[in-house]
């Protein structure tokens, strides 16, 4: 088996014996011998160059395509790599190595659903291919499907006990649910096999940080940052981790510079996908411009109740880092509640009405009868995403649902709305400091003006929709929940028609057991903490670019001015 490392992933060409072209083609071109020789000498760079030459000369062959794809991938020509790998799988439909390589390329392009399909195909051909199991685990993690991620990594390790991808994947999952000791042990195993393995270094540093040794974490992260082999995304994330290590030492100016390096590294890496116009912020502003023109009564709708067996339907929203995950975990600890975490359940309705801001006009005027298929699509999507709302109060949590309030107003006039609110300055600072899975909205959070502008847009939309929705909305203050958990949680339960239960206090245990896919996981596993309250004061100077935009909301929500 031929394996080597590109960036953060290891590529395997199991079953792609270099000698095969010779056997398949007696009149093989001389260049195939050269490729073979290069592979035998483990000179993969040369093999890649030769493969591209062979391709250019018209010698199409699965191995040649695979090597040429690798070369393209290393150059960042991902579309070209993908086309070559697709061709390789056409030529050799039973070659699991080519399918696996295709999946890895798709992962790198963050096309996770397609990557998952490719890994599934590879494993259908070769069920014991440990590398594909591990890669599949990484894909599940990227998709926020943590239990499946863990299972895939464990399967990989059962087949190949020292698979570093799977070990690092498990370490990462443990770290995300706050099990730092377990995570550190796994990470050290990876580092013993592959010193400097980026994910493992980050996990080990996170454990040190959690254990109070911020300077050790800092040293470890700085060494990783100095490694020239680090891929741009990985470098950016590591700089963000370094920001946390500096923050823990009270070195806020340096921490802020590290966060900026992290965010701007991501900003550059993802510019091709999310840097174009219109941005998510432009889109939100376009929505506000439309909402200003549509009379508020257009959103006072009457419509079909949820399916009979669903006892209640709740949309939980706010803004990223405003406490939605905490609230979801708390409510999810209630025996009569089913929650779904950050899934795009409204995708059919979004496609129908919100592919452009002007769609709001159509939505406001849409005849009631035409909306039923979208409601059905919603509940079908909930089921597909693993939601089991039958017999429960169903809480659909997504912090960005705020931007979908007009859809929610029209489609689900009986649903209740829980709005998580936190000091806008803490929210925006935290958005700037945390590392989210990249998306159009997350891209806006990479600069302070962008984050503040996006926050302002979300709150403006909520305010425009308030006349129609206030009666079925409850605001839950994050600070209040921390200060008086029982009273605040009880009030939320009352609003949802749920009885109070002490089980809600045990939400942290649930986080530890199940993990949380958003950046809040490790924090929540520690239980309630007032640590995040008023953090912005430590970063007052750094937050200045955002403050004018936030000031009106600070005042309106009654937070202290200074």
């Amino acid at each position, binding site marked *: 088996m031929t394996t080597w490392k590109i960036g953060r992933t290891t590529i395997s060409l199991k079953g792609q014996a270099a000698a095969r072209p010779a056997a398949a083609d007696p009149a093989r071109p001389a260049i195939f011998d050269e490729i073979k020789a290069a592979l035998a000498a483990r000179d993969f760079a040369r093999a890649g160059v030769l493969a591209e030459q062979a391709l250019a000369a018209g010698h199409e062959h699965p191995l040649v395509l695979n090597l040429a794809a690798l070369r393209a991938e290393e150059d960042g020509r991902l579309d070209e790599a993908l086309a070559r790998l697709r061709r390789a799988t056409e030529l050799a439909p039973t070659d699991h190595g080519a399918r696996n390589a295709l999946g890895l390329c798709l992962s790198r392009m963050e096309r996770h659903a397609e990557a998952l399909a490719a890994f599934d195909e590879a494993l259908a051909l070769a069920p014991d291919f440990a590398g594909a199991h591990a890669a599949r685990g990484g894909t599940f993690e990227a998709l926020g499907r943590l239990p499946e991620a863990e299972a895939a990594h464990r399967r990989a390790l059962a087949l190949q006990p020292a698979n570093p991808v799977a070990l690092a994947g498990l370490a990462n999952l443990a770290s995300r649910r706050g099990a730092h000791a377990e995570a550190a042990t796994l990470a050290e195993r990876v580092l013993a096999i592959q010193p400097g393995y980026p994910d493992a270094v980050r996990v080990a540093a996170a454990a040190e940080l959690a254990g109070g040794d911020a300077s050790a974490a800092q040293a470890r992260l700085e060494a990783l940052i100095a490694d020239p082999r680090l891929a741009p995304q990985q470098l950016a994330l590591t700089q963000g981790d370094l920001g946390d290590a500096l923050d823990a030492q009270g070195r806020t100016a*340096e921490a*802020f*510079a590290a966060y900026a390096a992290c*965010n701007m590294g991501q*900003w*550059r890496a993802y510019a091709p996908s999310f840097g174009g116009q219109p941005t998510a912020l432009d889109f939100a502003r376009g929505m506000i411009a439309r909402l200003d023109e549509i009379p508020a009564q257009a959103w006072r709708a009457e419509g079909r109740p949820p399916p009979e067996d669903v006892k209640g339907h709740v949309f939980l929203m706010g803004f990223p880092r405003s406490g939605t995950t905490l609230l979801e975990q708390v409510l999810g600890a209630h025996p009569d509640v089913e929650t779904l975490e950050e899934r795009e359940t409204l995708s059919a309705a979004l496609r129908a009405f919100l592919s452009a801001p002007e769609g709001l006009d159509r939505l406001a005027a849409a005849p009631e009868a035409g909306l039923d298929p979208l409601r059905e699509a919603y509940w079908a999507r909930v089921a597909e995403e693993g939601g089991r709302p039958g017999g429960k109060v169903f809480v659909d949590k997504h912090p960005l649902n705020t931007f979908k309030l007009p859809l929610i107003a029209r489609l689900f006039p009986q649903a209740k709305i829980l709005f998580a609110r936190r000091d806008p300055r803490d929210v925006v600072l935290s958005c700037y400091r945390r590392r989210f899975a990249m998306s159009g909205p997350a891209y806006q959070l990479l600069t302070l003006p962008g984050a503040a502008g996006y926050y302002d847009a979300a709150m403006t939309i909520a305010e425009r929709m308030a006349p129609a929705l206030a009666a079925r909305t409850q605001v839950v203050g994050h600070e209040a929940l921390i200060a008086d958990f029982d009273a605040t949680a009880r009030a939320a339960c009352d609003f949802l028609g749920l009885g109070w239960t002490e089980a809600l206090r045990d939400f942290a245990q649930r986080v530890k057991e199940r993990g949380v896919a958003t950046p809040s996981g490790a924090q929540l596993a520690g239980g309630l903490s007032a640590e995040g309250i008023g953090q912005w004061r430590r970063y007052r*100077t750094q*937050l*200045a*670019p955002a403050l004018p935009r936030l000031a009106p909301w600070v005042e309106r929500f009654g937070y202290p001015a200074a």
Partner: protein
Amino acid sequence: MSGELAEADRLRLDGDLAGAALAVARQIQASAPDPELAAAAQALVEGRLAEAHGLARAALERRPDDPAALRLFAEVAARAGRDNDAEALLARALAIAPGFTAARFAYALALHQQGKTAQTIAEAERLLRETPGHPLYLQLGAAARMRVGDYAASADAYRAVLDAHPELALTWMAYGHALKTLGRQAEAVGAYRQAVKLRPALGEAWWSLANLKTVALSADDAAAMAAELARGDLPDEDRFHLQFALGKAMEDDGRDADAFGLYAQANALRRKSQPYDPWELAGHVARCKALFAPSFFAARAGCGSPAPDPIFIVGLPRSGSTLIEQILASHSQVEGTQELPDLDAIAWRLGGAAARPSEGAYPDILAALSPAEFAALGAEYLARARPHRKEGSPFFIDKLPNNFAHVALIQLILPNAKIIDARRHPVACGFSAFRQHFAVGQAFTYDLADLASYYRDYAELMAHFDAVLPGRVHRVIYERLVADPEAQVRRLLAYCGLPFEAGCLRFYENERAVRTASSEQVRRPIFTEGLDHWRRFEPWLGPLIDGLGNLVTAYPDSPEMRQ
């Protein structure tokens, strides 16, 4: 010299660009080899751009190598403002038909529009070899040469056009600009006067006369300008120029209330087409203060290109930067260039070319650049500046005032470049900018309150860098320079690491061309009578003085401004 001019050429020479474009379309239409192209040209003539685009594209798809079809499609692209597309299409047409003169001229224009000056000049020269003395080609070449500072050649070319076509008012004005920059002031005045004689409503020519600052406008001039201003059909462009110019005439005549009224009208009119958001700078300053701590620069020490060549003179316009430039450029080791747009262009690109720069990635992006990237950016700046360096001096000056916003960028990409902050009393500076018409890029000067907040933000940012990088920026206080030139010039040269040269004190003997608003003032010895000039206008400067607050009393120090 060619005889009769084509309609399009005449219109273009006369500054009627829309009319010229229409005439070109008509020409194409008349000469179109087939009905398909003719239909596309017809749509272009009638201003139906989308339809013209579709038809021209269809024609080109059928005949991708037809120069006429390529040229037509290029014309459509140029009208839509896509000059880069027009350039590519015309390059292809010319590769097929190198003798296609109309296409070559369109090509040169597309290059000029994109600021590709060296190429524009080369194409204009080629056109002139084919048709010697053609006024349009001469004029295009002259305009391009102005951009690279080849004013003498530019003036000669304009002169040649005017010898054959003395009726062209706009060309007289352009000729005046070239002469003025060359220091041939009397001839410049003559050229501007000829322009306004031919076209009395040509506000820019009147303003150019007033802007010489050393020419007193007569009562007759004032009457002529007032008569034009009384017309109801005067375009805004001419109106505000005339208001600024007549304001200057009134001020010279001691009629301060009338003068200020005209300045206020001119600025209000200008503001209509030049919106300004004070947060664009305030937000940038806040972001700089957030990011650029001493540790930020310490962690990036040794980055960038080590070249010591550039001397950046930054600050607000009308703060004495032209004087400082002239002093430094009189040193044997230093040459002046222009207000170069390149640093700003680099910053804008780094920020992701955002529609609102305040929401882009600059300056935060500087946190994510590698040492190699800083070095490459420094090298890029030097390469972009190179065509402007004509004397081969070891040091050169870039005096774009707005570069004060880029101190961090300079420090990171050109750590050995010098940065000089030209500072002048805030009310004097603000009022001086208010009565000045800037051709481009100074939208904050059209409102007194905006001027105040701009000055505050600038002073705050510079104070931050003084604290973070002590001594990095050398400040020249204009009033001190005027009061004691030798002491201040010695300090300035010492900061630049240059030996003292007496020639720097006789800067007004320097022959070099100067293009900024202050140019005529620096051709004379330092004069001090203007320092308190603004006090005459104090009754009307309330929004400026109030907005500046404690900056006025603390000057020349920076008070603690915020928090």
